[in-house]
């Protein structure tokens, strides 16, 4: 039975089924990475989004037990040209299709993904629905559905209760935290496990706190620094978290990643805006204005910090995207706060920005401890 992808403007792409037969709705976005679908599907920042993969052959190396970035599939659905029926990799446990069915996640394949990508590029991202039913019914549902930007997805993806991450991975918050060089508190707006894994690999224990945690609660864990995590949705909706970051400013070193970058900007009095089609992929060049060096980064964001809005805030924009000149990093040295718009933890994507973790640990004075 064919499946349809219906866009809000009434455009219908008809393809073949993938994953669960259930209907799915979300913002249609594209990712240009050629690998990393397992990480992307489980990345909380994709909550509420139906991810189109521009690389046409997805699922080639199957699904393994390790490369998850959270406990569940976060993306609303996936859109591919062709999902591999016969994956091949020594770690592969199942096909992409089986995995999606098992998780009840819908998808569509066999559509002209390049045509859709070009459409999103020129008209911007849009709400869409995948359905096995009548496309006109889907269109009616889309007309009355809430827009992506109106929903607070952070509340949905953030940890309901604190937990910790150490050498052995995820552990109860009250597990013995001995033998670590330092401890960071992570304000979980949709954290990716690889952030926690990177800290652990460097000997740093993470205390992961729900998005509702206020500054006193965070500081109560006596961390050496605070990480504001990535996460989904429009940062403007997150006034509570913004307030938390504002309260933390100056009290403790802060490192923001992706949505964390936007949170820091807002906390410093700046603002953000929605990008036409976002940055999602593993090949985004970012220039460090201080060193002149360019780094290839992993990105996943639909909103960007307005550089103008930070003028006079005391913060400095220190990194820019080489393609479109948008803000990729800000720092407020006096407040011991800095943030980057891209993903030093990669997963998926290049590892070139990994040194940020060590750098942050160094800045909180514990790297060599």
């Amino acid at each position, binding site marked *: 039975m064919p499946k349809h992808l219906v866009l809000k403007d009434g455009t219908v792409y008809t393809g073949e089924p993938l994953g669960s037969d259930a209907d799915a709705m979300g913002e249609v976005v*594209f990712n*240009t*990475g*050629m*690998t*990393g679908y*397992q*990480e992307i599907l489980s990345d909380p920042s994709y909550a509420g989004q139906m991810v189109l993969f*521009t*690389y*046409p*052959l997805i699922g*080639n*190396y199957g699904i*393994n037990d390790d*490369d998850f970035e959270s406990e569940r599939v976060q993306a609303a659905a996936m859109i591919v*040209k*062709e999902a*591999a*029926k*016969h*994956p*091949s*990799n*020594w*770690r592969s446990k199942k096909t992409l299709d089986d995995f999606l069915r098992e998780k009840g996640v819908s998808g569509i394949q066999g559509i*002209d*993904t*390049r*045509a859709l*990508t*070009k459409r999103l*590029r*020129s008209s911007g991202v849009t709400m869409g629905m995948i359905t096995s039913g009548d496309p006109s019914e889907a269109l009616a549902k889309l007309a009355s559905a809430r827009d992506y930007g109106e929903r607070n997805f952070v509340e949905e993806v953030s940890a309901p209760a604190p937990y910790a991450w150490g050498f052995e991975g995820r552990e109860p918050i009250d597990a013995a935290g001995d033998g670590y060089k330092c401890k960071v508190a992570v304000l979980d707006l949709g954290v990716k496990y690889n952030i926690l894994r990177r800290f652990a690999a460097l000997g740093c224990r993470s205390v992961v706190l729900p998005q509702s945690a206020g500054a006193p609660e965070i500081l109560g864990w006596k961390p050496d620094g605070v990480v504001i995590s990535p996460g989904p949705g429009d940062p403007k909706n997150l006034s509570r978290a913004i307030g938390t970051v504002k309260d933390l400013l100056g009290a403790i070193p802060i490192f923001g990643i992706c949505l964390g970058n936007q949170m820091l900007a807002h906390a410093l009095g700046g603002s953000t805006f929605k990008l036409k*089609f976002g940055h999602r*992929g*593993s*090949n*985004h*060049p970012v*220039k460090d204005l201080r060193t*002149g*060096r*360019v*780094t*290839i980064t992993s990105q996943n964001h639909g909103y960007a910090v307005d550089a103008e809005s930070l003028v006079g805030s005391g913060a400095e924009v220190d990194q820019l995207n*080489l*393609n479109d000149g948008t803000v990729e990093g800000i720092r407020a040295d006096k407040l011991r706060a800095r943030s980057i718009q891209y993903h030093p933890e*990669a*997963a*998926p*994507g*290049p*590892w*070139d920005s990994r040194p940020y973790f060590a750098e942050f640990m160094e800045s909180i004075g514990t790297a060599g401890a």
Partner: protein
Amino acid sequence: MSDRQLRKVLVLGSGPIIIGQAAEFDYAGTQACRSLREEGLEVILINSNPATIMTDTETADRVYIEPLTVEFCERVIDRERPDGVLATLGGQTGLNLATKLASAGILEKYGVLLLGTSLAAIQKAEDREMFRQLMHEIQEPVPESWIVENVDELLELSKNAPYPCIIRPAYTLGGTGGGVARSPEELIEIGKRGLSLSMRSQIMVERSLLGWKEVEYEVMRDSADNCITICNMENLDPMGVHTGDSIVVAPSQTLSDVEYHILRSASLKIIRALGVEGGCNVQLAVNPHSFDYYVIEVNPRVSRSSALASKATGYPIARVSAKVAIGKTLDEIENSITKTTKACFEPALDYCVVKIPRWPFDKFTAGDARLTTQMKATGEVMAIDRSFEDALMKAIRGLEVEQKDLRHEGFEKLSDEELESAVTEPTHERLWALAEALRRGWSVVRVNVLSKVDPWFLERIAALVAGRAEPNRTSFKMVDTCAGEFESRTPYYYCTSDPEDDHIPSQAKRTILVLGSGPIRIGQGIEFDYSCVHCAKALQREGYRAVILNNNPETVSTDFDTADALYFDPVTFEDAIRVMEHESVDGVMLQFGGQTAINLARRLSNAGAKIIGTQPTAIERAEDRDMFEKVLDKLDISRPEGAGVKSVDEALAVAQRIGYPVLVRPSFVLGGRAMEIVWSDDEMRSFIKSAARVSGDAPVLVDKYLPFTEAEVDAICDGTDTLIPGIMEHIERAGVHSGDSMAVYPAVNLSIDAQKEMVRITAAIARELGAKGMMNVQFVVDGDEVYVLEVNPRGSRTVPYISKAANIPMVSIATKCALGTTLAEQGYGSGVWDPANGTVSRFGIDPNVMTPPDPGLFAVKAPVFSFQKLSLVEPSLGPEMKSTGEVLGVDLTFSAALLKAITASNLDVPSGGTALLTVRDQDKPEAAEIAAELVSLGFDIVATAGTHAYLEEQGIEARKIAKIGKAEDNLLEAIRDRRIAILINTPSGDREAEAEALQIRCACVERGIPCLTSLDTARALTTALRAVERGEDVHCLHIEEYSKSQEDVRMKL
């Protein structure tokens, strides 16, 4: 980057096309020259290969077509005083040359900076031991290995080496002399050969990783330490097969994101540690069952893989590398595809690319077709589509081999046991063996265990053989480096079955499709690509939109900015029609795309296409034996007697009538494939079958063999007038394929009357056929008697040679003729081009013009062979073409030009030593003359019994040497011990003697000892050596200086 201003740069080319170093370096060098000139630099180029776009005078400011030796480079540096030299775009040849220039102190002497990657970095990457040390320092894993520098060490190692193990000689390209040893005996044999072929007499023996995945990363680093990955590629053939001989896909398919980035990070770490500045290639072996990997090697330069990566992604690696070499950083360089983003990013693909190599084993049927670490392919095709299956089938279709899909009759006949070994042992046809095994229902697991090919590929091949149909491709998608993320205007397309078209061509201009020549193979090389590129440029100058269809990733024609649009698809009827309909073309130009394109003339015409230039009927009248005979009869032109035959009996009857020896060949093929001189009925019976198989429905041609001088002309015709840019005389007499002969322009021995007759005949044939555009005529000349051998109604292999030697834009003039502008309207007209005066001489047209024009220079073309890479291939010259490339020697005298051509052709010309002669009876008198000349040049002569006796009779001092097996000290041992500096051997008819002679010739080839199988070549060599001996002036001038009259040049000197 530097403390001094760069104004002038010398770019080193890569020389002749050989296996392992092909057209990709013309693509790279051309991009580099343009890229540097964009930056306002003055560019000087040296390259001995005339069949290149880079040696066009418009590519660089000054072009030196001179041998790529230290001596000539120094002379160029001395004359030009460049500030820098760019070597990393000239392949291994360029890199080795730069190394030699540095170690000879020449760079220092003239204060020339080596641009881009430093010499120290090059050495660290190329010297096995230094590289291993560096890898240990940065904790990157390299396979356990041993460096061997002499035979004693080799023997010692052979006792405890882990078998199978791999042998790699240092400082060679395409893995020359390498191999896989399964026993101590094999290790010693391959190791000895490797030691003798390595520039440093150094080989590495390493633990075999047979069966591991082979993955490559194309990476780039600039002087500010910015590093990017352009592309990664995964080989379908696992470790053990040279990557140039592997089927390759881009991007990798079976690596998870973690694995992809483990290897990417390792690659970047390595180029940072080396300090590479520019493009670089990292080869890795990956354990299919764990995260383990090994670094295999690094090429600190632009390579074949980078050409492939460039075409696969659209990222112009060579262009960017050149800019990086002069100190620009990646973020300063524009992404010339999108024009809106920078070169500092990593391309994202939204399609799958498949490369399949093209091997010469359809011609060299006796060659060892097993694939090892020594590359054997002459060329490759690339295919782009939205799935692996579709791209694979496209690639197969574009290979121009017998198989058009995954069926192979040869394998269908095999027993299961035989098929099992065909699946296990990699050969040029293993893909079809895999398909056959899967068709027989063998499980993917079983085929994987045998072949080690990843199940990912096998599953897809299984789906194809199970009947997955080729899709109906109706649209064209763009290659844009960014998977559609940014708007691009690159006119680079491939056809696919997805509904949306990325490209709706504008109808504003009249459009002409230029058909390319497909993969490089023996007989159809880079010369045709050269012509296609010039044709497209000429069409554009005439106000047309020029679009190119081609599938060869190594070429300039498949650069996205060569034409107005590039269609990267197979050069077949279906694909041509699809492009023509899509572009609503006004015509198709197929006379520059070699036999590939010309063979499509009739079908395209029948399908309603307008063929620009010479019409299909005229093509058939030239190529069809019977029709051609009628043309010649009508015009009263002589030809060697003969006939077309369709059976063995007919062939025998014809041979009896005209008398042996006869020349037997199939019709409608290029490069003399399956062509042979036949001396007896017995030989006829055995040979005719293979010729018939190649010929198909067309008749096999049997002609009287005339052992006289061969000559040829290229002609440009407008239907009435005929312009001959130059008359070429072959050094080797008829019987040696024209592509394998040395040739000289202008003719040095042909009589005036014979030359006149050649002009007359050419003009008459052209007019009779109504040829419009290029035509090529081959002659045999006996005194004043001229016989026509064949007419090729298309651009030939010699077009770039004569274009450069006679300084005339042949393709441009021919293109205009094909479009309908007459020669007279272009200011030419009938006659022979006179470059010294820039006019057309009426020689041969007007009886009052008594002498052919004197160009004031001599240009000698010499063939270059790749026998060292192809074991068991007969290296003697004959009617079937065997060379892979050519060089040009230009000078003011014939002997100096000859000397340069021979020097440039990689023939290791000895200035003395021992010459070994063993020739057949009828050649003995001539051999004696050559021997006498060699003696007077200071050579010692050794000869086998018969030849020795004859020489003694003639009073020529020679030492007798025993034949193989006859004595302890026989000629084979002498060759193996390198006591022989040169071999002169003419093949005899005798089968037994020939088997032995073949062994001797192969032994010479393996050791790089010149092996001359034509006495004409030997005589040319002595002429050249004589020129050296008498200290003749050998000049070093840029090509335009030669092109002017001799007096002018001498004035300047």
